[in-house]
């Protein structure tokens, strides 16, 4: 152990580091989703199903998005073993998901409902396989890892006026420190950068990165415009507006604070695309909380820090989602969903640097195994972004 901040993690073949050691039970398609949940329900909490609504009837780009996201979860460092459950006639190919897990050095198997012979036999066989994986992982050792092994997802949702004044700048200071130590952070929600793009583009490490960021934001804005609709019905949300936020520019400027004050923007990646560079990466995700977190965890984030003003319960199947709020009322009102209260920043009785220090300790404790509220309550929301109608 050195003076460098660190945590106790699972070092995977190839050097990626996990903060959890889940057995992941992955359906290739919606038709297998219920079976995966039934397989996991009698096994320990470390065995998690990944039910989703996709996997068939999707056109090229959406099919690609589904496949990429599922494969990224199978290869994710928070996952120790993978059981793929197929139906047998769908578009997503079970073997490629098994291969994604094995290429990352994990044990992986697949079964198919049509081959096993129905729901009950598949549940029985699936439980046997998942139970064996759970026992194999039971005594896996945690090892000391430097903070630079972390990819931190930066997220805000249910924002109110305290988000931009307390929780987001607290998270931004943590992001700056993490990157100072050689770590990586990822920011999604392109629509919530709209109006604050000048702040991030000015921090681009190379001109191409800045141009790429502006191109992605223009595309999202053009897509909204092409529908002939007023984005104001969605952004800011009705709850944001009640909380005092008036425009998307205002929401974005507050939201962008969570990307730090000085951290260079080093890359722009597609949805669930792998975050590979130290510094701040921007991911092309929609603003919807669960789709956005699903994508950033797919990109390799092991831990999510999620700031909220009004309070929100959502988690993720494989990554701890740490909830912090700057709203004292929400901290009390929704205590079972929240992990850290930084509301004393609002009345100057705590500085942003002090709050960031507490958040850093929390992130490292959670990375070493401390359960967050969303894990205790089994909030495991997962939604793969889709762009087109199902055919």
């Amino acid at each position: 152990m050195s003076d460098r901040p660190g945590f106790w993690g699972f070092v995977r073949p190839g050097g990626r580091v996990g903060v959890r050691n889940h057995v992941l039970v992955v359906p290739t398609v919606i038709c297998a989703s219920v079976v995966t949940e039934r397989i996991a329900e009698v096994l320990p909490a470390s065995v998690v199903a990944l039910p989703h609504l996709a996997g068939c009837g999707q056109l090229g780009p959406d099919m690609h998005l589904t496949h990429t996201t599922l494969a990224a979860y199978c290869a994710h460092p928070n996952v120790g073993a993978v059981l793929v459950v197929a139906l047998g006639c769908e578009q997503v190919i079970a073997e490629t998901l098994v291969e994604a897990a094995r290429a990352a050095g994990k044990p992986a198997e697949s079964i198919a409902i049509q081959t096993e012979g129905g729901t009950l036999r598949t549940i029985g066989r699936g439980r046997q396989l998942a139970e064996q994986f759970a026992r194999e992982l039971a005594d896996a050792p945690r090892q000391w890892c430097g903070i630079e092994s972390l990819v931190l997802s930066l997220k805000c949702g249910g924002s109110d006026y305290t988000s931009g004044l307390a929780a987001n700048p607290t998270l931004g200071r943590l992001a700056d420190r993490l990157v100072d130590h050689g770590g990586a952070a990822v920011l999604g929600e392109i629509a919530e950068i709209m109006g604050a793009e000048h702040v991030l583009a000015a921090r681009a490490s190379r001109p191409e990165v800045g141009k790429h960021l502006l191109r992605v934001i223009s595309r999202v804005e053009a897509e909204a415009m092409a529908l002939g609709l007023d984005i104001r019905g969605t952004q800011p949300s009705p709850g944001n507006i009640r909380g005092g936020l008036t425009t998307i520019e205002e929401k974005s400027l507050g939201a962008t604070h969570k990307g730090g004050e000085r951290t260079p923007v080093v890359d722009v990646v597609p949805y669930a695309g792998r975050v590979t560079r130290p510094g701040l990466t921007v991911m092309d995700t929609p603003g919807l909380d669960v789709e956005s977190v699903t994508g950033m965890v797919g990109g390799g984030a092991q831990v999510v820090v999620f700031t909220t003003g009004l309070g929100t319960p959502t988690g993720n199947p494989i990554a701890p989602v740490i909830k912090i709020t700057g709203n004292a009322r929400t901290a009390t009102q929704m205590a079972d969903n929240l992990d850290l209260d930084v509301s004393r920043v609002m009345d100057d009785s705590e500085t942003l640097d002090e709050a960031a220090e507490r958040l850093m300790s929390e992130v490292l404790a959670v990375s070493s195994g401390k359960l967050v509220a969303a894990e205790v309550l089994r909030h495991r929301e997962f939604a793969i972004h889709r762009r087109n109608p199902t055919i």
Partner: protein
Amino acid sequence: MKPALMISDRDNVATALETLEPGRSIEIGGRTIVVRESIPSGHKLALIAIAEGGAVLKYGSAIGTATAAISAGMHVHTHNLASSRGRGDLELPSVRPEPGVRLAEPADEKNGFVRAEPVRGTHE
């Protein structure tokens, strides 16, 4: 706690940190502002007069355009401030939103269905 917070020296609005009642005088950014109307906690009040069409500034950046003349001490929110971004409705006068009518369901927007009927918004 301060009654209101001005984030950047460039800003022409401040955020109320408690509900501010009309007639109250508050010191902010080196001047005294008399609150003109009730401003809920978390909402914005104007620090100076802002002309219709003028930029409203918070975090030192424009957060939209004033849709009516605003005096110092007034509440600044959706009734007198509008975004300049992502406004497809402004490009198509036939679908100019009318008050009180629900916007198309977000799921429809996401999937890209365009309705044959003109779509109406919730805001004016």
